[in-house]
């Protein structure tokens, strides 16, 4: 009797663990969370390679400072030591190579992550990202600040494809998760090893850009209010935000 109870308990525990494992796998597939710090060298084969330079190594194999991609801040004048400021802009270039014959395109999801000071002196900086907003330890002020940053700093690209080089389709949309769609970007049925250059652009408009639906019909007084509100938001970002970085998730399309 005792033996049967023990066996039942063990089998029940194993079942629960398996259930949790399946659920976790399903959840991670559904919500595309951040994955960092994984050692992928043990994985036999991957579907795409993403490099920082032409014919360069996969970014996942790089470490330290080498793993960061440049975004063009160092090319700007009048901005202090490569810092973000209203009016700043730049481009990000990476090189995507299919490693499986089934891959015929890719999607690129650019994200903005902002950092603010910790609550108390000596605390670590707090990183705020879109994924974190769904399960936040953040204050409402921090959430609002993140949303303002996403309104002011936007990603976009040039339309059309050119031989050997891809320019992301023109998308300017900061209110929903932005995904740059490069499906069918490779021409042949077997694209293994064919490297393509992808360039994305970003900018922080110096003044309110009047790009939203309804902006064109604003009265002169309302336009001034919009400009003033945008400037005040810029001041808020500059005063409270400590830092900003970008994350680009490149996923294969089959």
């Amino acid at each position, binding site marked *: 009797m005792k033996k049967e109870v023990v066996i039942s308990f063990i089998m029940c525990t194993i079942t629960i663990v398996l259930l949790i494992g*399946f659920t976790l796998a399903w959840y991670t597939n559904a919500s595309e969370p951040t994955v960092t710090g994984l050692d992928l060298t043990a*994985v036999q084969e991957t579907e795409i390679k993403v490099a920082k330079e032409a014919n360069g190594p996969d970014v996942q194999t790089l470490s330290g400072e080498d793993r960061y991609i440049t975004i063009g801040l160092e090319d700007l004048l009048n901005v202090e030591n490569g*810092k*973000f*400021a209203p009016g700043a802009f730049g481009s990000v270039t990476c090189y995507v190579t299919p490693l499986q014959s089934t891959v015929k395109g890719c999607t690129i999801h650019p994200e903005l992550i902002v950092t603010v000071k910790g609550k108390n002196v000596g605390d670590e900086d707090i990183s705020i990202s879109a994924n974190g907003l769904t399960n936040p330890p953040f204050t409402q002020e921090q959430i609002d600040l993140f949303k303002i940053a996403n309104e002011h700093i936007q990603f976009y690209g040039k339309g059309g494809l050119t031989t050997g080089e891809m320019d992301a389709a023109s998308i300017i949309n900061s209110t929903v998760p932005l995904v740059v769609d490069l499906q069918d970007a490779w021409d042949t049925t077997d694209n293994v090893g064919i490297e393509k250059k992808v360039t994305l652009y970003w900018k922080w408009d110096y003044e309110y850009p009047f790009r939203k639906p309804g902006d064109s019909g604003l009265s002169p007084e309302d336009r001034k209010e919009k400009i003033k509100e945008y400037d005040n938001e810029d001041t808020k970002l500059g005063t409270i935000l400590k*830092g900003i970085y*970008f994350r680009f998730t490149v996923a294969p399309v089959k």
Partner: protein
Amino acid sequence: MEQKQREDREQRLNRIKKRYVSRKTMRLQLLAATIGLVVLVVASFAWYTWKSRQVESKTAEVMRPYYLTLLNPGEQNELELAVGNLFPGEKKQVVFCVTNKPNEENIDMGGSDFDYEMELIHTENLNLTYEISQLQKVDTEEGADIITKDTDKDKNVQYWKKQSPVLNNTDVSNDRWTETGVTENTINRGKYLHYEKTYDGQELHLDGTSVSSGFDSNYFVMEIEWKTGSTEDFQKYEKETDMLYLLVKAMQPRPQPQPKVKDQP
């Protein structure tokens, strides 16, 4: 008897065998379940990581907004713009400091190099003239045009020499009236005088990162004069008071690309 003992022994042996087989079976089941669990977890992660690649940029700081303030000439307190009473023929002077020196509340701001502009706004009830001159601090009273000191107990005496000529200004009243929606019928709509240049034609500018102290200060004197003499006809004045405002605004430049960078779409 012997047969019974043999049977008992066989039964004990059979029980022992069953127990052993049962434990062995349980261990095998556990091992199989553990292997299955590990395979499941590894397969989940491997399947996920095959899907995508992530690349990040390094965290870059956000530039703090330029910090600009108006202080008394002693640079300790905020400017108190109070002229007081003025009689015909009298001239009064207000010395002020424009600085990017941060205060305790904004200690991590300030210290940037930038141009700025000033705007003087005044009502026109009285027949007054307004001039702003740039000042240079001198060490002694000899040759000084203006002497300032803290109001209490004559502390912090400072000597100033006026730079010549007075600052040029642009009358931007029409623009401001249009912006604020005032009309000709608006009482005390004010006059707006805009200053961008120093006495020698340079941009009004504050240094920050380029100087060792990390901040810079410019000094000015505003001279308000009632030029009409003692024969002034007071009957024509409807009001006895004029209001005065002084604004300073930092000019944060729009970032420009290095010459080598091609145009961004």
